[in-house]
């Protein structure tokens, strides 16, 4: 296969059952922020869930960003390393952009609060795919005909290729 320039994304869903210290901080802080900042879109307190609030006032979609801002310092502490994801040698995988999304919440039921963080990598070169494994190199190595340092990641749930650009074939 021709090499391709890609970006990977890994999605981490955090809810009331999440167990890591990082997840708990994200969960609790984002919920407190939801209680605080959703009021701007629900001044009379008529609605209880995020879906209801959004249906009433589409500007409530800003809550994705507002909650993300509230937990930025926790995400910063990751040092750009994607939680739960390693290459086949146990090395961390770096992300460039964390995309935060409020999936669900309820002003009266903290157990219903659920968020997702999708960690998007920088540009990687997809060198080849061997069975269920992606062989990757950092940066754009498409035109590099010599040896390249690579790392291998298993194709797994919550992992996706979100950007793809194949090498130009010059005839």
């Amino acid at each position, binding site marked *: 296969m021709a090499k391709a320039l890609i970006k990977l994304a890994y999605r981490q869903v955090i809810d009331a059952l999440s167990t890591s210290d990082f997840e708990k901080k994200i969960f609790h*802080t984002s919920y*407190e*922020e939801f209680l*605080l900042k959703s009021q*701007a879109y629900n*001044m009379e307190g008529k609605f209880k869930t995020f879906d209801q609030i959004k249906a009433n006032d589409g*500007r409530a979609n*800003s809550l994705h960003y507002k*909650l993300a801002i509230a937990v930025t310092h926790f995400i910063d502490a990751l040092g750009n390393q994607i939680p739960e994801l390693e290459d086949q040698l146990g090395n961390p995988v770096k992300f460039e952009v964390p995309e935060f999304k409020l999936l669900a919440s309820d002003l009266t039921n903290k157990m219903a609060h659920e968020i997702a963080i999708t960690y998007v990598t920088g540009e990687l070169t997809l060198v080849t795919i061997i069975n269920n494994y992606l062989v990757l190199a950092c940066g754009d190595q498409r035109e590099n005909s010599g040896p390249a340092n690579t790392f291998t990641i298993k194709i797994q749930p919550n992992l996706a290729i979100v950007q793809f650009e194949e090498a130009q074939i010059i005839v």
Partner: protein
Amino acid sequence: MVLESCKKSSSDDGTSSSLKASGSTSSVAGEAPTEEEGPFPYPGGEATNPLQRIDVTDGQTGVPLALTLTIINVNNNKAVVPNVRVDMWQCNKDGYYSGYANQPGALGTQSYVGKTWLRGYQVSDASGLIKFNTIYPGWYSGRATHIHLELFINGVLKKTTQMAFTESISDVVHVSTLYSAHGINTTRNANDSVFGNSAVDLSIETLNLAGSVSAGYTGTLNIGLAL
């Protein structure tokens, strides 16, 4: 382009229930007008949140602006109100907000996801005082120069408002070195979709500024709550 959430809602006739938490604009003399909360507000919660801070500049360059706000109760002879959490947020000198992706503007489309500059919150002290060290805001198309505020008491949103700036001063700042690439704000206060509907409201929410580009500015304002 006016950022959607910075506009008044299309249904806003001055009595929009989503905005008028403490009554309609200027229903009580001296009460801070309720204004659009805008698209880019701020967080908080835990005791060690780094965004509970006086200095919100976080690496952003600009003409310094030291804000001193006094929270007062217009229903109680303007008595000061302690323990009010005040969240502020504003755009940088180029007219962009931290935390948001795909913002159109003077430097093209920019994304600042993962950034929190020019955002912060404080809790008013026994004298009702709040201080923020920030920069003079830039501007973006369709809005007069402004800073956003939200005020909470015991976790309850009491006021969403914005602070306006005297144009004669903004015009000086916006042609100074750091801001000159963007130039003077083409949206004047009187024509602004948020400030332009009431001269009385505008006067209540306009910062009292003193200083200069070289020395920086101080800005003071009483923020009135009808409690």
